[in-house]
């Protein structure tokens, strides 16, 4: 197996203690940082798909992301500028009144590993704060809003509509969370919806490259 293939396999398997060493070995053998990164992004894509189909679970996904992060640390000093986040910046948060963040964090990890820079606003985020974050950060191409409570669905709607009415452009809005349906996403005026973290990364990429 080539070193790059090994990196890929170990990220998928979540070998947090091995990946950094392997990435270094791959570099030593002459592999390019960009290619190693791409291999890790690809393995997170596989992890996301397996999560979507129910083949793996939250711990496996967390541990794979952690393994990738160890590899990225080795690559960072070598990467010119921001090529690790070529798809732009994604602002993400859980909407006002809602404190659940497990799903949001998984989505954030997957979107990050797909090639976005993440600005995480945390939980209980008022609509205006999403708008401010779009203004304050460079190259925001995506805003992701999470909502887990049926009682905060109106807050989700408000977040999307405040973003859309802000006059700011250049970004798409994606929504999700257990009670959110594709129909509801359309109704509130979001550009996209995904049912889980794996497909969120796929959708995110699709939205900003469309």
């Amino acid at each position, binding site marked *: 197996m080539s070193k790059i293939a090994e990196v890929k396999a170990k990220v998928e398997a*979540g070998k*947090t203690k091995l990946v950094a060493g392997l990435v270094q070995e791959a570099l030593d053998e002459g592999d390019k940082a960009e290619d190693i990164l791409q291999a890790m992004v690809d393995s997170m894509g596989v992890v996301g798909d397996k999560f979507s189909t*129910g083949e*793996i*679970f*939250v*711990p*496996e996904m*967390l*541990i794979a992301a*952690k393994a990738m992060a160890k590899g990225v640390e080795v690559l960072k000093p070598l990467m010119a500028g921001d090529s690790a986040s070529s798809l732009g910046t994604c602002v993400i948060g859980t909407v006002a*009144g809602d*404190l659940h963040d*497990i*799903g949001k*964090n998984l989505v954030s990890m997957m979107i990050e590993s797909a090639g976005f820079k993440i600005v995480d606003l945390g939980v*209980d985020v008022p609509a205006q704060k999403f708008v401010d974050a779009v203004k304050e950060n460079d190259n925001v191409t995506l805003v992701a809003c999470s909502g887990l*409570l*049926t*009682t905060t669905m109106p807050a989700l709607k408000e977040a999307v509509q405040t973003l859309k009415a802000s006059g700011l452009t250049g970004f798409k809005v994606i929504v999700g969370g*257990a*009670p959110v349906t594709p129909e509801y996403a359309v109704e509130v005026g979001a550009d996209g919806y995904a*049912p*889980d973290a794996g497909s969120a990364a796929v959708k995110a990429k699709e939205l900003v490259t469309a």
Partner: protein
Amino acid sequence: MLTKRQNLMETMKGGKPDRFVNQYEFMQMIMSVPITRVRPAIGEEKVNEWGVTFRWPEGQLGGFPVHDEEHILIKDIENWKDYVKAPSVKRPEEDWVPAIEAANAVDRNDQFVTCFVAPGLFEQTHHFMRMENALTAFYEYPDEMHELIDYLVEYELTYAKELIDHIHPDCIFHHDDWGGQISTFLSPKMFEEFFLEPYKKIYGYYKANGVELIVHHSDSYAATLVPYMIEMGIDIWQGVMTSNHTPELIKKYGGKITFMGDLDSGVIDFPAWNSEIIAKEVERACKTCGKLYFIPCLTQGLGISSFPGVYEETSAAIDRMSKELF
């Protein structure tokens, strides 16, 4: 007409119930047990009996464990023993009086004297160190996680002994949420490795000491865990969401375990609730799940609803289905 208790037993055994068991009617929860959980009221922050800080901000639906650097209980799992100290379960005898009186007032031919236990083992692990740290620790620090869970089991057994000695419960209603809406948190294999034996111990202890009925709450997807539930000694899984395809589970496992739920709180129990939605959902649940091994119930983990009137309206709709179908 059968008593509530008889009707439940007929439903569970595949006998001849004369109506649907209506939600939580067969349990008489003894909520005055003196070993209480410390919880914040709205607008408050409180450190609970284990040292976990809970905060309930104004305008929110409920309390939440605080997991920033300063408040998180287990700062590193390798040294969990430095942070986790089980609270005492000893209380002066006189503190037990209200609970004992409440238990004595129950007609045990009609209802099960029930003690409520929460949070569960899995929930404690994430309350102590936040969900992400707990979930990755099952991979990275399995020995420490086993030790921590064993420690929680020891605590639960001392707690169980107090309940048994004072209340002699017929039924235990035990919470532990094992998943989200569409999947379990842990793979079935990992769940088996960490939680099967511990729960066998806890539920086995109750059963060995006069408790007839173990009702476990997990309002989630958990269809893949049903074989373990059966092995643990769970008699009724409360909180089964529709995402589990309850009718299929009943076909497959009915007789070994009873399913209580199939009325997703999210669909029924919301600010703009109405009796038509409730009637429609109750009819669907009752007709597709059938009369045996099934108890129509909101998935919420207590006999209440988030929005006033929903629980009662649901009960009324179930009674109407009983009239129609029995």
